[in-house]
């Protein structure tokens, strides 16, 4: 479904991605892990075409990302941004229903609102939140609104950039279950970035670890705990000693 080959991306002298290869089959859930600043968010943005890669190919369902019609290409994606990226000029429900109220097959206002309230409930937010503005929400609530917006139009492919950071453990569990459910029930293809190993175990079919601009380790989730790779071991065990320097 998603095929990334030899992806390079640099910012000035900072070579962030140096030949990343990943494949995500249709209906599977890939979790990307890796140290802070290793280019996980940039990888997703390159796939979405929000950042222009310096080299490499990206294919989604066989189509080259650069060649296909951009709006049609993006229509099948949903994305939760790391910072939420909620539209602060409109209330929560309009954020969630943004895509539903626009374009072909758009819903009426009242319908869109009820879908939005339903999606909010799925991320653990009550209907009273719908009419607040994003600035009136806590960080974790904003994150969940972003999540509701990403899944609102039921896209084929969903990217979650740190969906559970800033959430309490119970809410993180709810969100993990939700992501799993979206993949299993809606048949969506998901790529999730997370630092939280319990999320990894709950969400992933496969895991890829980014390090030094490349995929250092890739494999099914049940091999994460037994794989001998020292980089992966250090990351999973959260130890300061190992091949990954603590100052980066």
């Amino acid at each position: 479904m998603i095929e990334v080959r030899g992806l390079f991306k640099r910012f000035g002298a900072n070579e962030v991605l140096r030949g990343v290869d990943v494949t995500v089959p249709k209906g599977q859930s890939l979790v990307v892990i890796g140290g802070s600043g290793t280019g996980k968010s940039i990888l997703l943005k390159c796939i979405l075409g929000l950042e222009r890669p310096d080299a490499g190919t990206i294919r989604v369902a066989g189509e080259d990302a650069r060649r296909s019609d951009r709006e049609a290409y993006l229509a099948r994606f949903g994305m939760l941004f790391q910072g939420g990226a909620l539209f602060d000029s409109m209330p929560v429900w309009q954020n969630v229903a943004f895509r539903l109220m626009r374009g072909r097959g758009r819903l009426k206002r009242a319908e869109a609102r009820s879908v939005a309230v339903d999606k909010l409930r799925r991320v653990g937010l009550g209907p009273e939140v719908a009419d607040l503005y994003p600035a009136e929400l806590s960080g974790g609530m904003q994150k969940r609104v972003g999540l509701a917006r990403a899944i609102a139009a039921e896209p084929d492919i969903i990217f979650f950039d740190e969906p559970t950071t800033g959430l309490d453990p119970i809410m993180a569990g709810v969100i993990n279950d939700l992501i799993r459910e979206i993949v299993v029930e809606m048949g969506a293809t998901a790529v999730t970035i997370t630092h939280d190993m319990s999320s990894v175990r709950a969400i992933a079919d496969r895991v890829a670890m980014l390090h030094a601009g490349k995929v250092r380790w890739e494999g099914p989730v049940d091999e994460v705990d037994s794989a001998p790779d020292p980089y992966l071991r250090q990351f999973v065990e959260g130890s300061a000693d190992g091949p990954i320097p603590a100052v980066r």
Partner: protein
Amino acid sequence: MKPLAAVGRAALALLAVIGRVALFAASSLSHLVRPPFYFREFGHALLTIGWFSLPVVGLTTLFTGGALALQIYSGGSRFNAEAVVPSIVAIGMVRELGPVLTGLMVAGRVAAAIAAEIGTMRVTEQIDALATLSTNPMKYLTVPRVLAATLALPVLAAVGDAIGIMGGYLVGVTRLDFNAAAYMTNTIDFLETGDVVSGLVKAAVFGFIVALMGCYHGMNSGRGARGVGRATTNAVVSASILILASNYLLTELFFSA
């Protein structure tokens, strides 16, 4: 060779900026004529750019009209031509000061606000989010603002013209002992349609410039609060300079014949 290289670099950089702005303008015009259209955004932009600029424009032109009457009176009295006050105030306001003052005041108010708003959206990834929600940021953010400003500025300038002339009238009648009725007939008789129309065309161009600069600098905002601050400043400065430069060119165009 060093100073020459520096001049060359600056010239190249300037050309690059002109090219980017021209491309941005062309792209916003091309999106203007292709659906979808965002009427709600357009209405909102019309309200914030047009309606809420009325007080600023009204006050600016009122005082300027008054001051203009005093200046022309004192200048005119040197060769016994005090009687020209009504006609010169009218022509000066309608051809030149109305549109330019409106353009500059709106540049300060609106170009800054647009650049700050869009710049913040850029920095907080809201523009990226728009794209992933199947909404073209040029269509959704730039087109409504550029269109609204281009349409609103002539109306604002017309209101500004009228208020400026009224400022001159008030000063003329109360301070300079003009006959009220004579002042009015003088004003109306001297003004020609061409004077008014050329001023309004100028205003439309200024409106386009203001919104375009706000959107361009906002969309290309640097990172963080500093980036947005710089985008805002650049938007106001570049809009103001472009307004004055294009005002000169348009004046040449309209009145050299």
